[in-house]
Structure formats: structure tokens, C-alpha cells
């Protein structure tokens, strides 16, 4: 291993510019002559827009234009597309109502885009936005999954009966019913996966910049995938050819999925800039982020697990209602289906699985991928019901998991829900976690806690997830409207330094370091010689971007493929210089060598000959040393692992304190252990946030009650103990790096471990269930209820 190669904890090269304040975020960019846009957002959840009077706003100081949905419609601006097509059980296509960037006649959630005010300064635009007079005629409001499926519920979309976007199924219903028919035990559980607000540190921002001279349009935007935005916005919304549209996503301050999607504001500023011939910038205020960034999760499920006497899983039946919000967002249809139902096998050999998902429209912000995207919902449901089964059957919860694990020799393993797991070793990650968490010593710690008047619990989850989206042919069969490969260019400069152009996008993940480490490792050069470029459609040939923990497994593999081409060409050049045949040339440690001899030439010298081809096989080879590659994955990758969480609960107040967290993950081959640990820490923090603190709450009228940090509770560092993380590696079998993906494992694996720990603490006092987030009041009430009422009620009366 070289000092900066694969496996080295190289410090992140990108951090220097962030630490000295030289990061360049979208809002740091200001274009000459730039105007500012402020969006007029609906203050009500559902209303017919009877009239919009912009007269007073137009007359206000500095105002250049006020546009509404009618103006965009007149220009034949299209709707924001959904990139995935899902079919219902009956074979019909999902309902996909048009989602105009500015709504012309009806607002469908608080925060919906009704008009845009464009002025010389941000303050002027904001002041004038308050003067746009919109006549809202309010309509009945739906907020929850339950609201949407109630018989006779009002409709979010007049032409979508039952508010049902689709009613999808996966798995073999008959086989599952048969499994239940011969089961000795059936365990039933209702679970809610709470709605979350992503809260990236950097609010979204977009600048449309049209140059009337060249007819070129540039969009600077806070995106995880600039090429996808160029494709979606250029092709479907504004009708601008790719050759005339550049999308730049510079430094991006966190996304967690929320910056994958093509948002209305991107189209609005781009379209407005083309109309006005001046750059137009929009930056979200934090309160706008709460009501316009796509939310996450929001499932209500009923699950049933069939077991035989020994506790072997026979079948799993799941029925889920998924809230997609008012509109289908970019991945809105894929998350509760192909990223959820396909994961319901978990780590287990459950032979028959059937899952149906009814996706419903409501008067809320669209719901889309958020760190984990579908997989946390699956893992939570499975790991909760497995614990429930262990309790009901009186089988040790670790033992029950082991009994049902897919054994090491069963890989590749075909699940009953479409996926084929390539590799894994679930016992190994479990063993590691039990040891690292001192699982055996828990009884003593619980006893000590009793002495302090505290309830202590320990919880476990053994999860699997699917990353590296995705084999394009499989994705295509599953309804994806795009391929999901990745591209890379490796450009070797004349003196041997290298620039890598990747279609992946880094917004916190550290690609500039890890991708450089791959180059360092393969070419035997120091990473200081390597520059990684991303985030600009003008520089990168194409890219599908970063989400679903795909960057290393897919984007990194594309880099490897391009590097292979470089080495292959280098071998031919070296063969010429060393007067040997190319087959005899070996490449290692930065040197091309004639096998078995001391005749060698350095990589940099080969690069030099490629650009100064004085002594060069010009008749056989072109000069230059540059290669591009597209890598299409052969399969998903399947990170897996075991998370253990220990909590202490104050029974008087209900406060849950996380006192220990152990994560034992198999993320495949690790390029940079420090970055991988960081990714796991972050994921764990978000996962614990979901389990204990975070919850997006609307009132019945569709007002967002948790619209600021006053009451949307983000976890803080002080809420956590130090995380005990480690891994056991089974290399991915089908990509050249053996890498699986790490970005989401924390937020997928840990929430059920936390809730299982909370229940482990509370079951002894009679509590039977608790939903996320397990807030202090919920826990206190559960304890009171378990005591057959108690002081809570007595006090209330």
C-alpha cells in the first residue's frame, strides 16, 4: 500500500479550502448585472388561486418583473418530471399529474410556488413579494397517509381517484399466503416511519445566467447531479438543447438526497434569466428550506411475519401507505417501491415475501429520497418485527437472527423480492458487534442503572441495504427512465500529473481525496499529483451524480476502467522505448518494467513520450495519454452490518439518553478508513436523530408546525456518546474496487437498534410499543399507560 493509496487514511484534500474560507458555494457566485428572485409561496395548504394582482409589487422600488404560472404556461414551460415510472397491480401507469414550476391555478401545499418577484436587490424583491396580492379560495386539506385513504376523502388532484398515485406490489402473494397458512406463529406489527426534513447545512440556491450574445444558458445550482438537472430541465421543462445549456454545481454544503431533485426554482431562475437577458439569483431562506426541500420517509405500514416452531421465518407480508406529498418529485415513485419493497428480505432467508405499497398524494411538501431512501423504512420494519417475534416466541433475539441469516455459503443469494445479493457474512459483523459492544456484560450495566433509578436497554439491528444504483438494464426493467452508469476521464499531463473528471459529485463525501487515492494506488504516484474535477457539465462528459451511496462503487469503478486504459496504452509506449513486446511489460509501483529484467521506465517518462513523441510508435499509437470510460454496474452492491445501541431512560421524565453505539459494518473494500468512519458517524447521527428527535409535523390545516429549529429537533453532538465503529470486509464481487458504499448505512441500520433498545428498557415496566421519534413525552406517557394510568392522568384531571 502506498502512503496515499487504497487503504490509507489520507487527510481530506478538499478541507483546506473549506477551512480557510475559500469554499465556493453557489451563493458565493455573483454574476455581473445579476437580479434577485424571491418566490411568493402559498401560505395555505390547498386553495384555488382565483386571482393574482401584481400591480403594487410591480410598482415597488427596484422591481423588474413579477411572473406567475400563467406567464410560464404562455411560454409552454413543461412540468417537473419524475424519473421513474411505477405500475400499479392492475398494470396501469402511476398517476403523474403535471407539476408546473409556478402553479397557475391551484396551490397544493404550504410553500407551493405561486409567483416570482425579480428585483435589483434581494431586499427589494422580498419587500415586493409581500405586495403580491393572491386571492386564495381555500379547499379541504389532506395531510397524513390516513387522511388520504379515508373513504370519501377530498382530492388533492381532481383526476386522481382515492388520491392514489399507484398501488404497487412485489413478491409472490400466493406463496406468501401459503406460508402463513402453515405457520405456527404469526407476529403482527404496525409501524410508522416518521416524516423527516433533510436540513442540509447549505440552503438551496440557483442562478440562471443567459448570455444573449452566445445564446448559451448557464445554471449554477446546489445539486448532487448537475448532468441530471441539465437533462431534466433542458429537455422536459424549458426545451433548451444540452449543447446550449451548462449546469454547474460547485461546492455544495450537504445534500443527503434533498439536492438530487430538479426543483422549481432552478427552472424559474433559468427561464426568467432568458426572458430578461440578465442573471437571476434565488437563495432559500432557512424557513423556505423547511417548506420546499423534498421531505423524507412518511410511511405507515402493517407487517406480519410467519414463523415455524423453531423460529424459522416462513413468510413476510407487508402493507404500506407511502405519502408522496402534493407532487411526484424526481425519485418520488422509486423510493417507496424499488428502494423499499426489494429490501424486505433483509439479512434473512425468508422464502416468501409479499409487499403492497399504496402511494398517496397529500397537501404536503413532496417526499423523496433522504439518506437511505426506502432502505431505512425496510430495515426499520424488519428489525422491529424480528425483535417482536423474539419477544413473543421467547427466543433470544440474537439467536433468532442467526437462525434465519442467509449463510455465507448461500451467496450469491436470490431473494424473493428481485435482488440477488452477491456476498456478505452476517454472522461476522454480528459477532464483531456483540464483542465490541460487550453485549454479554449488559446485565451488569442494567443493574447499575437500576441503582441510579434509570431504565437501561440494549437493542440490536442486523441490516442489509442496496447501493450503487444501478445496473441500467435492471433499472430500466424496473421503470427507471434513465441509465445509471457513471463516466470518468483520466487525463495524464506531459510530466505525469493527472486530472480526473468524474460524473460523481462530492458534497461532503470527500471524493477529491478518495478518487485521487485510487489514481495514486493504480498509477503509483502521490495524490498531490492528482486533481479531481466534478460538478460542471462543461468539463465532464456526462454523469449520473451522487446519491444512493453510488459514487465509489460506480463512479470509482469508472475511474478504474479509465485508468486501466491508461496503463494499457502506457504499456505499449513503454514496450517501444524498452524495445520489448507489450505482453512482456509489467506495471507496478509507478514503473513499466520488462518482466524479469531490470529494464524499466517510470510512469512520468511514458507520459512525457506520449506528449513529446520523438521516440514513439506513431504508426501504431496516437500521441497523448488520456482515456474516458463509462462504467455500468453489473449488480447493486449490498453493504450490511450490525448496529447495537444502548440507552438509559429517566422514568420520571421519559428522557432517553443514548449511552453507547456500536456499528459493525461491511461496506466492502475501504479506500480511506477515516472518511468511511466519518460517513458512518454522520449516518448514525442522522439515524439516531430520526429515532429520538426529528419529526415533521403538520397540523390539520396543513400548516407546518415544525417549520424552524425552535421545534424541529436536529440532533447535536452533545446528544451522542462516542461511536464505536469498525468493519468486517467481504469485497463486492462484481466491481473492480470491491467497494460497496457507506454513505447511508448509519441512517439505515441504527434507527431500529435505538427503538429496540428503548423497548428493551421499557418492556420490563409493561410498555409494549413506541413510535419514532421516541420523545420524552411519548416515553413518559407509555410508562404511565403501562402502569394502568398513573400520575400523568391524575395530574391532568
Amino acid at each position, binding site marked *: 500500500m502506498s502512503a496515499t493509496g487504497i487503504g490509507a487514511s489520507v487527510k481530506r484534500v478538499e478541507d483546506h479550502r473549506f477551512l480557510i474560507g475559500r469554499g465556493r458555494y453557489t451563493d458565493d457566485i455573483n454574476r455581473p448585472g445579476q437580479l434577485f428572485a424571491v418566490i411568493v409561496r402559498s401560505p395555505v395548504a390547498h386553495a384555488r388561486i382565483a386571482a393574482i394582482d401584481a400591480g403594487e409589487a410591480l410598482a415597488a422600488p427596484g422591481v423588474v418583473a413579477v411572473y406567475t404560472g400563467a406567464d410560464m404556461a404562455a411560454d409552454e414551460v413543461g412540468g417537473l418530471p419524475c424519473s421513474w415510472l411505477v405500475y400499479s397491480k392492475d398494470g396501469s401507469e402511476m398517476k403523474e399529474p403535471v407539476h408546473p414550476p409556478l402553479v397557475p391555478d391551484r396551490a397544493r401545499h404550504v410553500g407551493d410556488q405561486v409567483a416570482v418577484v425579480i428585483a435589483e436587490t434581494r431586499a427589494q424583491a422580498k419587500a415586493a413579494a*409581500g405586495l403580491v396580492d393572491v386571492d386564495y379560495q381555500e379547499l379541504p386539506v389532506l395531510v397524513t397517509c390516513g387522511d388520504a385513504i379515508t373513504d370519501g376523502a377530498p382530492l388533492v388532484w381532481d383526476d386522481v381517484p382515492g388520491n392514489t398515485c399507484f398501488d404497487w406490489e412485489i413478491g409472490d402473494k400466493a406463496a406468501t399466503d401459503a406460508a402463513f397458512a402453515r405457520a405456527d406463529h404469526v407476529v403482527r406489527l404496525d409501524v410508522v416511519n416518521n416524516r423527516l426534513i433533510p436540513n442540509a447545512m447549505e440552503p438551496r440556491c440557483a442562478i440562471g445566467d443567459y448570455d444573449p450574445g452566445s445564446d448559451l444558458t448557464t445554471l449554477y445550482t446546489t445539486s448532487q447531479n448537475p448532468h441530471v438537472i441539465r437533462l431534466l430541465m433542458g429537455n422536459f421543462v424549458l426545451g433548451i438543447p444540452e449543447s446550449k445549456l451548462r449546469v454547474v454545481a460547485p461546492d455544495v454544503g450537504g445534500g443527503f438526497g434533498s439536492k438530487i431533485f430538479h426543483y422549481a426554482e432552478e427552472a424559474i431562475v433559468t427561464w426568467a434569466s432568458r426572458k430578461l437577458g440578465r442573471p437571476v439569483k434565488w437563495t432559500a431562506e432557512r424557513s423556505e428550506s423547511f417548506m420546499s426541500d423534498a421531505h423524507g420517509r412518511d410511511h405507515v405500514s402493517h407487517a406480519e411475519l410467519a414463523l415455524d416452531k423453531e423460529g424459522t421465518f416462513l413468510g413476510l407480508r407487508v402493507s404500506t401507505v407511502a405519502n408522496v406529498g402534493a407532487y411526484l418529485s424526481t425519485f418520488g415513485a422509486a423510493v417507496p417501491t424499488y428502494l423499499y419493497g426489494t429490501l424486505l428480505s433483509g439479512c434473512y432467508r425468508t422464502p416468501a415475501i409479499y409487499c403492497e405499497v399504496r402511494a398517496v398524494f397529500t397537501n404536503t411538501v413532496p417526499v423523496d429520497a433522504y439518506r437511505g431512501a426506502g432502505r431505512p423504512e425496510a430495515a426499520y420494519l424488519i428489525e422491529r418485527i424480528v425483535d417482536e417475534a423474539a419477544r413473543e416466541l421467547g427466543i433470544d433475539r440474537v439467536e433468532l437472527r442467526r437462525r434465519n441469516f442467509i449463510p455465507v455459503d448461500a451467496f450469491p443469494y436470490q431473494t424473493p423480492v428481485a435482488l440477488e445479493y452477491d456476498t456478505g457474512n452476517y454472522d461476522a459483523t454480528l459477532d464483531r458487534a456483540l464483542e465490541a459492544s460487550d453485549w454479554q456484560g449488559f446485565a451488569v450495566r442494567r443493574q447499575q442503572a437500576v441503582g441510579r433509578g434509570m431504565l437501561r436497554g440494549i437493542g440490536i439491528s442486523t441490516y442489509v441495504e442496496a447501493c450503487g444504483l444501478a445496473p441500467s438494464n435492471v433499472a430500466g426493467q424496473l421503470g427507471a427512465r434513465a441509465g445509471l452508469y457513471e463516466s470518468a476521464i483520466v487525463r495524464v499531463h506531459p510530466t505525469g500529473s493527472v486530472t480526473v473528471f468524474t460524473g460523481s459529485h462530492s458534497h461532503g463525501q470527500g471524493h477529491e481525496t478518495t478518487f485521487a487515492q485510487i489514481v495514486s494506488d493504480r498509477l503509483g504516484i502521490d495524490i498531490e499529483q492528482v486533481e479531481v474535477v466534478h460538478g460542471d457539465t462543461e468539463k465532464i462528459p456526462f454523469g449520473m451524480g451522487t446519491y444512493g451511496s453510488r459514487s465509489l462503487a460506480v463512479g470509482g469503478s469508472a475511474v478504474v476502467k479509465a485508468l486501466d486504459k491508461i496503463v494499457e496504452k502506457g504499456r505499449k509506449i513503454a514496450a517501444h522505448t524498452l524495445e520489448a513486446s507489450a505482453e512482456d511489460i509489467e506495471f507496478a509501483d509507478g514503473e513499466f518494467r520488462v518482466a524479469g529484467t531490470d529494464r524499466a521506465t517510470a510512469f512520468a517518462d511514458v507520459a512525457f513520450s506520449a506528449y513529446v513523441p520523438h521516440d514513439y510508435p506513431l504508426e501504431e499509437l496516437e500521441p497523448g495519454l488520456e482515456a474516458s470510460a463509462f462504467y455500468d454496474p453489473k449488480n447493486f452492491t449490498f453493504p450490511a452490518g450490525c448496529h447495537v445501541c444502548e440507552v438509559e431512560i429517566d422514568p420520571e421524565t421519559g428522557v432517553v439518553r443514548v449511552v453507547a453505539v456500536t456499528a459493525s459494518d461491511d461496506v466492502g473494500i475501504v479506500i480511506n478508513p477515516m472518511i468511511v468512519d466519518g460517513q458512518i458517524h454522520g449516518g448514525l447521527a442522522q439515524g439516531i436523530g430520526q429515532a429520538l428527535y426529528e419529526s415533521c409535523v403538520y397540523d390539520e390545516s396543513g400548516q407546518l408546525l415544525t417549520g424552524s429549529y425552535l421545534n424541529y429537533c436536529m440532533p447535536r453532538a452533545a446528544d451522542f456518546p462516542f461511536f464505536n465503529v469498525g468493519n468486517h470486509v467481504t469485497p463486492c464481487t462484481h466491481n473492480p474496487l470491491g467497494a460497496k458504499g457507506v454513505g447511508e448505512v448509519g441512517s439505515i441500520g441504527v434507527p431500529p437498534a435505538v427503538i429496540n433498545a428503548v423497548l428493551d428498557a421499557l418492556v420490563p415496566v409493561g410498555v409494549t410499543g413506541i413510535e419514532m421519534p421516541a420523545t420524552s413525552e411519548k416515553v413518559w406517557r407509555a410508562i404511565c399507560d403501562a402502569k394502568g394510568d398513573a400520575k*400523568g392522568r*391524575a395530574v391532568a384531571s
Partner: protein
Amino acid sequence: MQPFQIHRPSSVAEALAALRGAGEGKLLAGGQSLIPVMKLDLAEPTDLVSLAGIDALRGIRSEGGRVVIGAAVSHAEVEASPDVAAAIPALARLAGAIGDAQVRNRGTLGGSVAHADPAADYPAALVGLGATVVTDRREIGADSFFTGLFETALVEDEIVTAVSFPVPERAAYAKFPNPASKFAIVGVMVAATGQGVRVAVTGAGPSVFRVAEMESALADGFRPEALDGIAVSSDELFGDGDASAEYRAHLVGVMARRAVAECA
């Protein structure tokens, strides 16, 4: 936020003059409550009169069994003050539990009491310890200072200059913070003072209040168990997404007992 004029007086008299000369004038202390409200356009002052340059509002003094803290003293200064720690450690701890470090560095005692946020911590200290609010023109006892939700006995242009706290025999403050904002869902100051036992509750209702039943029980025996069975009615308490009225009522009892236990 609307445009405004800023004034930087160096005396209370100048501040009063600036305030009186303004269209819609507002005093600006740490800005930790006022600026957020202005950003939401819920307050639109034409003039802000900064108290930062007025030396008379600064400083912490111990004198004659009292600790007198200037209105412009920050929460962080109270937290770190050796005088406060020696005389009323509960007050130092209360200040140290306000919000986060940034808020404690900017926010001031005077701003907090004048703002009278129902979830603020200082009101419990003032009422629990029986403090006196000193203004540019008079002294107001804490019991009659906080009059309701964001309401105080201050008149239009009155400036708080200091708060004078009598040193208690013993006192402790127990806070149940809102996990999101860190403001008090319930905060209880319990003190044995020269004026008797005082129990003051903040966060739970629209304004800080005393719990007479607890005070008399503790006067009979200053032990946590003395409070057993004393229930606070949830009728007048806040109930919202952060905590129901019943939960708040319950927490008042728990926090009061913990505060008493801490005094021991």
C-alpha cells in the same frame, strides 16, 4: 427586515433621548430575541438604540447581602462571575444553561427580563429569588414585574438598568430544556430566602408563576419528599407540539423535587 437607524448612546440619559426622539424606537441589547423578530417582520422599528456603549449598565457587584447585575451583562458573564458563583451558584448555573455559547455571549440579563419570553430562564431566577428590577426611574419587585405573556410592568420608554438579587440561604434551578430550542419547557427555581421559601416556575405557562402549596410544604420541611403528592394543575399551562399541558404539569413536580434535592 425593514431598514432602520442605529443610535449608539453612551449614557442612559442619551439613550432615553434617542428613544423619545425616534418614530418607532426600540432598545437593542444582545439582539438575540429582537433581531429574530425583526427578521420575520414581526417588529419593524425605525430606530434601534444600542445599549452596548453604556458603561452604567455593565458590571456585577456584591453589596450588603445582594448581588447587583447590570442590565447589559451577558449570560456568559453571569455564568463565569466569581461573585455570582460565590453568592448564588444557582444563578450562575442557570445562566450557563441558557441556549448555546453564541447566545450566552450576546444575550443580556436586561434584554431577557424586558422581553419576558414565557420560556426564558431568568424570570424564574428573579421571582424565585425575590429580586428587584432597577430601571432608569424606579425599582420594581419581581413578583409584580412579570405581568403576562411577553408582558412586564415596564412602561413605553423605561430602561432596565440592573437587577438586584438578594443572596438566598440556598437555592437551585432545575431545567427541562426543549430539545430543539434549548429554551425551558419547564424550569423551576427553588430557594430558601430571608423572605421564606420561594418556588418559581418558568416555561410551563404564559408567564412565570409561584407555587404556593409547594412553598408552604417546603417551609415545613425543606426536603424533596415534602413535595410528594403536590400536583400542579395543568389548566393554565401551555400545551403544544413540544409538550402537552399534562406533561408540563408533571415536569413541574419532578423539576421542583430535583431542585430541592440539589439544594441539600
